[in-house]
């Protein structure tokens, strides 16, 4: 008993020790962002350890960020744009991923496996190389707008998520949809109302990945949305307000950090709220059936 419990206590102590260290490691840079956002100097490297605990918290960066107005464009508006864009992307990614996962898992499609591998392999082509051709194509199609952006954002998340969704749907007995179909839903209706609900962890995961991908993107949004200030996303606005778009001016990191904090809050909340789902989403990857 003593040896047993002693071993257990030591194991737990070591675990907590490591967890605490890692928690500090995780939080430290973010703490830094936080502190930077409350400084009134556009400083990014803290020059002495005492600067880690500033004596005054200034709200200048936040004020500047929230009061800036560029021809009707302002940060709250841009955040709103970003939220709309990101939510739409999330919804469409979820839909795309699950419908594909559903097809891969349940439906009888010729050459399904080859198709799946093809889709998987094609995504190996790097984003940096697809950006320009996409821009050219979307310009031709008059899609240099939110619709185009959403279209461009979705596959990155949903192709990966489709495979996770496939595994998840594999583990859902098909009798759930079947009974729904007998009860009066079409196959698609059963998919929407039953399968999506049962694969909730994957839905949530896909939504979060889709959301954060679109919410945080700069490069593509910048290329697509630049002309109209009122359509900017929060990242474009933030880069602009912090002076990062113009190399010939000193960047205001405190504004940048304040923006990051404001943008980070909804995202972090989203992650934390859905942590239960996140930790279940990948469980089918192990393929217990083997």
């Amino acid at each position, binding site marked *: 008993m003593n040896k047993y419990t002693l071993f257990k206590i030591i194991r737990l102590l070591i675990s907590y020790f490591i967890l605490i260290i890692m928690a500090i490691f995780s939080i430290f840079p973010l703490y830094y962002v936080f502190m930077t956002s409350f400084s009134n100097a556009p400083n990014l490297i803290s020059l002495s350890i005492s600067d880690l605990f500033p004596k005054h918290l200034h709200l200048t960066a936040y004020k500047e960020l929230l009061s800036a107005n560029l021809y009707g464009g302002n940060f709250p508006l841009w955040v709103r744009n970003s939220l709309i864009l990101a939510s739409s992307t999330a919804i469409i990614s979820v839909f795309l991923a699950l419908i594909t996962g559903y097809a891969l898992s349940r439906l009888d499609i010729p050459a399904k496996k080859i198709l799946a591998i093809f889709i998987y392999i094609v995504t190996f082509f790097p984003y940096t190389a697809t950006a320009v051709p996409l821009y050219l194509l979307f310009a031709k199609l008059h899609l240099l707008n939110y619709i185009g952006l959403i279209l461009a954002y979705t596959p990155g998340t949903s192709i990966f998520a489709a495979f996770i969704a496939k595994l998840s749907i594999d583990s859902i*007995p098909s*009798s*759930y949809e*079947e*009974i*729904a*179909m*007998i*009860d*009066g*839903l*079409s196959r698609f*209706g059963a998919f929407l*109302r*039953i399968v999506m*609900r*049962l694969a*909730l962890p994957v839905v949530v995961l896909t939504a979060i990945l889709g959301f954060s991908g679109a919410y945080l993107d700069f490069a593509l949004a910048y290329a697509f949305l630049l002309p109209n200030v009122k359509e900017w996303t929060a990242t474009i606005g933030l880069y602009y307000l912090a002076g990062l778009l113009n190399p010939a001016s000193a960047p205001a990191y405190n504004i940048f950090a304040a923006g990051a904090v404001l943008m980070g809050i909804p995202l972090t909340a989203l992650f934390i709220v859905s942590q239960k789902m996140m930790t279940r989403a990948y469980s089918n990857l192990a393929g217990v059936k083997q």
Partner: protein
Amino acid sequence: MSYVKLEDVWKWYKNKNKVTEVLKGVNLDIEKGEFVVILGPSGEGKTTILKIISGLLKQDKGHVYLRGKIVDDVPPKDRNVAMVPQNYALYPFMSVFDNIAFPLKVSHTPKEEIKKRVVEVAKMLRIDDLLDRKPSQLSGGQMQRVAIARALVKGADIILMDEPLSNLDAQVRVLAREELKQLQRELKSTIIYVTHDQVEALSLASKLAILHDGIIQAYGDPKEIYNNPNNAWVGKFLGNPPMNVIKGSVNGDSIIIYDYRIPLPERFKGIVKDGQDVLIGIRPEDLFISDKGVLEGEVAMVEDLGPYTILHVKIGDETVRVFEKSFIRKERNEKVKLDVNVNKIVLFDPKSERNLLLLTGIGNGKK
């Protein structure tokens, strides 16, 4: 007029260039208000049949008729059948109420109406106090009743049930079986019930269909099939403990089994020839331990199962099971004499294993 009819239904599954033929011409003719049990071993296509009837699967050949109309191209939602699937498939994220209400909700029934009908059905199945629970908070028996309630609530008069009791505890299963029987009597709906458990099949069926090798091996009154199985396989499959099927040969008016001789049953006279080899099917309950017994053997094993005992008796090379109420007790290795209820004996052709009565076209399992 038949209410549900399968006409030469074939179904094959293609899997990695391998084609598995599951159904090879199933014919089934079910009248309104019947409780038909389709009995067959696991993996023989019972669920497949139900799916074809409900429209979830499309047969590769043949036709399905519901209420006299061909429905081959009608999607499941328009066939107006209800189903209790093998694992109940209660939506885990909905309350019992919502589960039962689901078929009504999808057909946009007014809220009031939904509420009324759900409560009504729930009362009938005595689950009206569970309506707020989630499926995970139900016992197996309760889950089953919810699944049945969901099937009943739409008012479909054809109800398909896929081994609804297989997940239940033995104790609960007995109760559930009784409830189900009562229910069907009240509702008078047409129920097609699928199972691989003969006890269930025998106790529930008003008509029994036995599925094996992709076809319906026998269809009719369960007792009749039990007493007069079409072939040795059906005889062995139906009944627990299974029918004893042993080798023997005809000798005049007798059948020779090992060293022993029993009279040839009246109805087989004229059908079998002298000297013909036959398979003799004797139900365990048609064997009796009796000092005047004609067969003699040695007890190989005694299974005392409470209300009854199964004796495994070795006669020559063959072991037969003898079913006795428990008050008759024997020890292992004891010599016993067995009497036979000769009139219940069935003879099969040793090659085709078919019932010799049917082979010659006399009598065919229908009363």
